[in-house]
């Protein structure tokens, strides 16, 4: 109870601020509506009720957003384009594929960097530089050019091609934290632990699998949690510039075209829930690995 208390207080505070702000932000439009309808002497309670229930409010209220989430998940078959689950799945598949590619790339780069000083010097600046380019500038390039290469030269059907293009953007964002974290992790064994391997005349392979790799696990999972969230951002960004019709990003874009603010917010809620689920999933795997590796219970 002691732990839930503050959370509930915080939640109530957020809802109060939210609904308070909704009154102020939606009031101009509501006044307009009254003026055009020549409605006068609206009671304050009616006014507030109306600002909380507009069709295209500047700031939708919580019950509108979660009502929309409910309507477009539970009340719609998940294979219909009206369903948020359908869109979330499209985004999730690109996120998952991109996360997998990015993680493997990040780990691979870290292994090269740790084992080879020349690689360290030549790769690391490029890895850092890669993240200074705004992904919003790069995403349309990757999506348009990548899509054309996949469908044209490689002859891949449009749907997998679209998935791959988005996954590449996901991977581009997620490889960085994994690479940086794993470089640190693979270098984390102490001199004394490396000396021990040396006295056994262990091969570089043995030193890697029996010392560096297990020592890097805590670093790996910290990076993966950052990486999986970055992957989701990448997939959503990848859905924005293409006129894509499916995915949470496409849903956001469509909502903004038609001023469907409630729809935008519902998609945002879906995206954040997806992000939370992904991070939780990585956390569960981390706990399982920790248990298998005999970590001291926290």
């Amino acid at each position: 109870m002691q732990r839930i208390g503050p959370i509930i207080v915080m939640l109530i505070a957020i809802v109060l601020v939210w609904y308070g702000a909704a009154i102020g932000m939606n009031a101009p439009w509501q006044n307009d509506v009254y003026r055009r309808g020549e409605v006068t002497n609206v009671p304050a309670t009616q006014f507030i009720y109306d600002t909380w229930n507009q069709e295209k409010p500047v700031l939708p209220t919580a019950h509108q957003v979660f009502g929309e989430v409910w309507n477009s998940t539970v009340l719609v078959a998940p294979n219909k384009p009206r369903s948020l689950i359908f869109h979330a799945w499209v985004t999730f598949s690109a996120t998952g594929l991109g996360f997998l590619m990015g993680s493997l790339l990040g780990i691979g780069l870290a292994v090269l960097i740790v084992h080879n000083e020349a690689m360290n010097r030549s790769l690391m600046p490029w890895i850092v530089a890669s993240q200074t380019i705004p992904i919003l500038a790069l995403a349309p390039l990757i999506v348009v050019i990548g899509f054309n290469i996949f469908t044209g030269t490689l002859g891949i059907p449009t749907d997998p091609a679209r998935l791959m293009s988005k996954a590449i953007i996901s991977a581009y964002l997620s490889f960085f934290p994994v690479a940086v974290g794993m470089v640190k992790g693979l270098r984390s064994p102490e001199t004394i632990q490396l000396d021990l391997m040396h006295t056994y005349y262990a091969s570089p392979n043995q030193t890697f699998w029996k010392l560096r790799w297990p020592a890097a696990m805590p670093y790996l999972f910290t990076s993966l949690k950052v990486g999986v969230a970055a992957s989701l951002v990448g997939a959503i960004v990848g859905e924005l510039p293409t006129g894509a019709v499916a995915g949470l990003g496409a849903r956001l874009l469509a909502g903004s075209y038609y001023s469907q603010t409630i729809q935008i917010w519902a998609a945002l809620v879906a995206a954040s829930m997806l992000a939370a689920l992904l991070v939780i999933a990585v956390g569960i795997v981390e706990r399982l690995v920790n248990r298998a590796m005999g970590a001291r219970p926290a």
Partner: protein
Amino acid sequence: MGSSAVVSAQNLGLTFKTNDGDVVALSDVNLSIDKGEFVSFIGPSGCGKTTFLRTIADLEQPTSGKLTINGQTPGNARKDRAYGYVFQAPALYPWRTIEKNVALPLEIMGYSAAQQAERIARTTALVNLSGFEQKYPWQLSGGMQQRASIARALAFDADLLLMDEPFGALDEIVRDHLNSELLKLWAATKKTICFVTHSIPEAVYLSTKIVVMSPRPGRVTDVIESDLPAERPLDIRETPEFLAIAARVRDGLRAGHSYDGDHV
């Protein structure tokens, strides 16, 4: 002596190149260690005793002179897995149980599962850790962790055991206990042991030979053959024979090193 020696150093020197100039860690060290000896290296910090041990282990490369282990170069001796090394810290891998930590060198050296099981059982019993095989290092006290690291060094049956201040981080009660256990272990296994320490009583209590070293440059100032009996109860440390050897060690340390700091 000569070719029968387990460790033989002739005019051995090691100079570290640093940004502040050269540091002479070892200078003109001549030493011969025979099979079955228990040799302690004692001296103040910076006298090169750990460096000498690491040179035997091929963890440092000498810059002059000659060093052989069983008549071979240190590099070849390491390839032959001629020695087990016990570090100042246990250096157990935290993700491995005690059993798996002891198995680490055996896995690397390609022992079969059956051989591993037999050796784990034998060496954990030797260091009195039977029953703790399934524990993780954090579940054990510091003394038990260091005993596990000794079991790990014994597991592959190297005849030479190199120990670098293995009990330095432990309190005196645990240290006394482990010292007497180490003597029993030495008697049971007939290994050659090189033991680095800061402690005069520890060196005298354990050794058949005490090498006194001094810093700047690191060199051997005295080699004392101990005539104490092989059977050594802890209270041997109050006997006149013991105290005489301890006094000679202390003299050797004083002669080789100015504690006033006027040489610095």
